[in-house]
């Protein structure tokens, strides 16, 4: 599904070149549940953003679902991730002005799905996540765990093949975090490939494979 070959990413500060990613080689197969670990500044989030096509890299090849991402134009890339990838963030990034229902619905709007169909899909996922009763509330009226649940629901609404989660439990207490992890396991069993970035050994253990990053390099 994902093949990264010799990915480099750097920034130039003055005369120095600081490497954010160095020679990343990584293959992810469909159905895997991968945890990326490493200390602060090791490049975990950068790697995740590169995989999610939200960020660009300076060197190397990236093949996603047999498409050479490094050769695609921005528009084509956007179309690709719009179709296959869902994102979950540490800070949830829900739109404050929209209700739970509307937040979940928004990705479908951008995929030009008809209103009646949207309704059915949102109703379905609200039901699946047990948050039907919260659908008319605004994000600020929810607890952190509930907000993240909505964030995941939103990421999953368009049936992505790949779920990218950047410290999804970073702002949650341990009980809420555990619930989210169990949800991930369940999703993974249903066939969604998951890549998560985490600080916590415990959460990393939920994954089927752990990748350790240090200073932009994968540690063997």
């Amino acid at each position, binding site marked *: 599904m994902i093949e990264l070959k010799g990915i480099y990413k750097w920034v130039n500060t003055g005369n120095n070149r600081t490497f954010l990613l160095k020679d990343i080689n990584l293959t992810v197969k469909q159905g895997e549940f991968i945890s990326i670990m490493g200390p602060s500044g090791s490049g975990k989030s950068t790697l995740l953003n590169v995989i999610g096509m939200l960020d660009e890299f300076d060197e190397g090849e990236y093949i996603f679902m047999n498409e050479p991402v490094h050769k695609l134009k921005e528009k084509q890339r956007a179309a690709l991730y719009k179709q296959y990838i869902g994102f979950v963030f540490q800070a949830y990034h829900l739109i404050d002005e929209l209700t739970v229902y509307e937040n979940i619905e928004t990705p479908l709007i*951008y995929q030009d799905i008809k209103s009646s169909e949207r309704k059915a899909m949102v109703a379905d996922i609200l039901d699946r996540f047990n948050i039907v009763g919260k659908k008319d509330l605004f994000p600020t009226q929810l607890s952190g765990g509930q907000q993240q649940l909505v964030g995941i629901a939103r990421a999953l609404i368009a049936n992505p093949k790949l779920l990218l989660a950047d410290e999804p439990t970073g702002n949650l207490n341990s009980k809420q975090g555990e619930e989210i992890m169990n949800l991930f396991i369940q999703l993974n069993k249903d066939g969604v490939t998951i890549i998560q970035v985490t600080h916590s050994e415990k959460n990393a253990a939920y994954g089927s494979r752990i990748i350790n990053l240090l200073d932009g390099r994968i540690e063997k």
Partner: protein
Amino acid sequence: MFKNYFKTALRNLRKNKLYSIINIFGLTVGLAACLLIGIYINNELNYDKFNSNADRIVRVTMEFKQAETVNKVATTGTKVGPQFKRTFPVIEDYVRTYIGSSIVKYETKIFDEPRVLYADDPFFKIFSFKIIEGDAATALDAPGKVVLTKSMAEKYFGKEDALNKTLNVSGKDMIVSAVCQDAPQNSQLKFDFVTQFLNLNNVKEENWWTANWVTYLLLRDKNSIPQLEQQVNNYMQTPAVRAEARLDGSNYLSYHLEPLTSVHLHSSLAGFEPNGSITYVYLFLMIALLILIIACANYTNLATAQSTGRSGEIGMRKVMGATKKQVFTQFIGESFVITFIAALLAFLLSMLLIPYFNNITGTQFVVKVLFQPVPVVSLFVFCILVSFFAGLYPALVLSGTQIIGVLKKGFTFTGGNNLLRKGLIVVQFSISIFLIIYTVVILQQMNFMQTKNLGYNKNHVVVLPIGGKMKKDFQNIKEAIEKVPGVEGVTASYETPEFVEWGDGITAIDEKGKHEISLNAMPVDLDFIGTLKMQLAAGRDFQQSDFAIMDTSNDYANYRQPFIINETLAKKLGWTPEQAIGKIIDKGSPGPVVGVVKDFNFSSLHNPIGPLVMFLSRDFANNFMVRIAGNNTKTTLSNLENVWKQRVPERPFNFHFLDDDYNNLYQAEQRTSVLFSVAAGLAIILACLGLFGLAAFTTVQRTKEIGIRRVLGATVSGIAMLVSSNFLKLVAVAIIIAAPLAWWAANNWLQDFAFRIPVQLFVFLIAAIVTMLIAFITVSFHSVKAALANPVKSLRTE
């Protein structure tokens, strides 16, 4: 999708109440100003165009040279219409018109009606005033007929049918032959009654001179105007016509044809009403646009500032697959929602403001004019344009942001944009300061005109018009008025002293030779100098014994006319005031100069004081001028009314005050001053609101910096200065830009006045200081608040 955008937009409005209110308020005011001014301009540009023959109707104006002076007037003699029609086949018809006041009576109702129109028979054929009842063709075919407007029919006859009723107009019984629609707001002819032209005195004989009438011609071909004008002037130069008009030497008489639709805005000659002016139209347009620019700038500034808070949402929308175009559409849409709300409010506001607007412009619009297609559609179009221009920049910037940057470190505008924002603030304040300075200069000049020593005292003088019959009883009525308690003096004259139009010529002979001078003349009664509290430079006022030399016997063979001249005339003739006394001048008949009056302003302050001669005459007395005591004016007036009712039962007691007449001369200036005061006030309020919003935003952005500075020991005032100084610099730049422009514009405006104030430096200083102060207070409201906050708290939130 649009529902989604719409909801986000509305919820955002609610969330950021301060910004929303500033934006909507600003745009509402801007759009309302545009709407009202648009209606005014539309009305001005369409003046007289309701006439279906408008492009074929011309007004004839007269130009003549006599006594080395060229005069142009909008009125013509009685001969122009009929003689031209007989001579030039391209003229289909003519109408001679005059609007005067008449006493109108019906049963017990008696009014002095100021708008009685006298017009030739084809009036209703040439002009398109709609007849509601009666027959247009025969409405004016006999002298005993009168046409009423609808409102007059209601005034005199209530619900009764007005047709064929008998109305007494100026002592003649007339049959109501038709009722017509009230003359529209944008008609140069505004009347309440129409009756036949020949009902006027002394108009039956065709005459080139005695030009008191406005003549309109209906042409067969609208393109023949220049050609006809040429033909007319050739005709007027033929010896036969010159002889008939008693023209000799270099004197001439010629005519110009003004297309009806260009009279109001482009003619320098006023007809029945003061003309509008195209300058005025431009001035209004400029003000509307300036206010709108300020409001748009507010929107752009606040929207870009606010977008920091929206960056998360935009980033997320992009992550979820929104394209650049979709984000762009969303933000333009948002700006449209705001503008649309503002447009609705602007419409309501305009409805409320119409009476005040009428006051400023001197128009009589009713709320109904707003509900016509033109204003509604224009407002909508404007709304779209404004939302596009105001929303364009924020939409472009926001839609172009990179997702990753937004998600990582939040959103910040960088360099280029700050320049734009600063530029907009400078523009806003330049406009405001310009308007403030300009307005202050106008107000100073207005104040100067009201308090200037005119050479006579215009206060507490009651003007009472004198009607034809009263002249026989002149002396008795005058004496009766003099006896009223509270009356300090009575005199009479043809025109009131604030605006003398009577043009004349005199010849003076002294040892140096013969001088011919064209000047203004005033027929006055005894006590004129004293009653109006003018000063004499030499000699005396007219006195009873002066009538003795006015010997009318023997066909005026020994008639001598006593004169009082003004200083300017004396100087022009090379006399000192003392030398002038006893000199003989000739104005039709010769007579001695008995007094020299110190110069007084007998024309508007736009003009310098010219030579003037006053001559003793009661035949021309048109107005009593009664000086009353400054206290108890009410009692004095009611006493006057009682005496009037006994002495002059046939005329209602209509009076006006001389100082009001004087102020009426400056209506246009009065309006300009009000207009600019309002505009300047609005501009500064809107600009400050924008600044207020922007300061709120920057202060939030700099909370952390302010916190750190506080921890390091900065004082509250130091921080207030730090935050404010950025804005104050911009205001300073605006002052530098606006001051020379305002200086130029104000001087330009003042050039029109012969008597004017100098533009003073302190006006600029005060405008600068006041604007700075207002801006400082506006900005420091936020910075002081932030500086006073506990720094630990502001640092923790980061």
